[in-house]
């Protein structure tokens, strides 16, 4: 009965919030979703040998990706799992990419954070998931040793055999732990 006394012209704050959200979905987030679907299409159709990625569950804004080390590098044949988080402003803001598998690399810290210019200030709206993953794949064999997150790895980089052994060992240690 009490609900009948409510002024019908007054807008219920809850319904207003819902409407705002639907407007946001139709305008902003809808185009982001569309763009992410495009990204997925491009990645699937390109048939990349070393990188792959797919949305994690129903959430298109959260992806799981895999990068395999190229032949002739210290990372040869090693598979690394990554996590990609897309902001609401994608592609105007860079996605957040993190290694889930520990990666011994001068520009990756022990939490999996990647220090890569295109994921920060050099981000361009032109880039998509495929180019981001390929850039990280390339970073594995071409580290930037001038500004390392992992100084030990940067120092060891000079000694190729020692470095490769360390990378393989770290990867094996993680594999043993997860099994």
């Amino acid at each position, binding site marked *: 009965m009490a609900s009948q006394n409510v002024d019908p012209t007054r807008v219920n704050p809850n319904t207003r919030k819902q409407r705002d959200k639907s407007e946001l979905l139709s305008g902003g987030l809808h*185009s982001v979703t*569309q*763009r992410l679907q*495009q*990204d997925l299409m*491009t990645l699937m159709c390109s048939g990349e040998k070393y990188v792959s990625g797919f949305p994690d569950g129903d959430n298109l804004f959260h992806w799981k990706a895999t990068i395999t080390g190229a032949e002739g590098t210290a990372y040869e044949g090693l598979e690394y799992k990554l996590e990609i988080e897309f902001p609401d*402003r994608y*592609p*105007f*803001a860079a996605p957040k990419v993190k290694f889930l598998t520990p990666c011994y690399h001068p520009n990756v810290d022990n939490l999996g954070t990647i220090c890569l210019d295109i994921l920060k200030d050099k981000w*361009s*709206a*032109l880039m*998509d998931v495929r180019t981001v993953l390929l850039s990280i794949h390339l970073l594995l064999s071409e580290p930037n040793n001038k500004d390392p997150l992992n100084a030990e790895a940067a120092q060891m980089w000079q000694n190729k055999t020692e470095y490769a052994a360390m990378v393989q060992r770290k990867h094996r240690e993680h594999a043993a732990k997860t099994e």
Partner: protein
Amino acid sequence: MASNATEENASENENKSEPTPSSSQNENNEPNNPNFECNICLDTAKEAVVSMCGHLFCWPCLSRWLETRPNRSACPVCKAGISRDKVIPLYGRGSGDQTDPRDKTPPRPQGQRSEPENNGMFPGLDMGGGWHVSFGIGAFPFMFFANNVAGFGQAPAPGSPQAAQEQFLSKVFLWVALIFIFWLFIA
């Protein structure tokens, strides 16, 4: 062929809410032509603009990109300098039927029509409309340059604030140069 042409002519006069059989056939022949896709949303460019470096964008996409980094705007494709005034809107056939995109926010920049370039023998010395002299004085350790001294209040594009500023600067430099010459004579 003839029937197709008449169909197209008829469709021009009609309200284009539904694609005619001939136009839909054309679309099927060229599926997802990537040449006309926006470099940001990767979809067919809507309210298209093209940058001076030749890259195609939707105006809503590009304006949002420019908003995200107002201090250093670069073309997302080639990192060339880009700004609101340096993009050209593209108007395709039939775009007049739609509502004017400039009414929406953010407005798409207007088309610009620049005057044809003057291919005179002396690019600095143009005696055409309003005399136009350019000269420079170099002396160690000081160097003064007076350039584009527009005489008798005739600026390249009268009325615009840039032209007024340019004129003011050129006058300042002219006076500085004259004072310098005078000082050279005295010393």
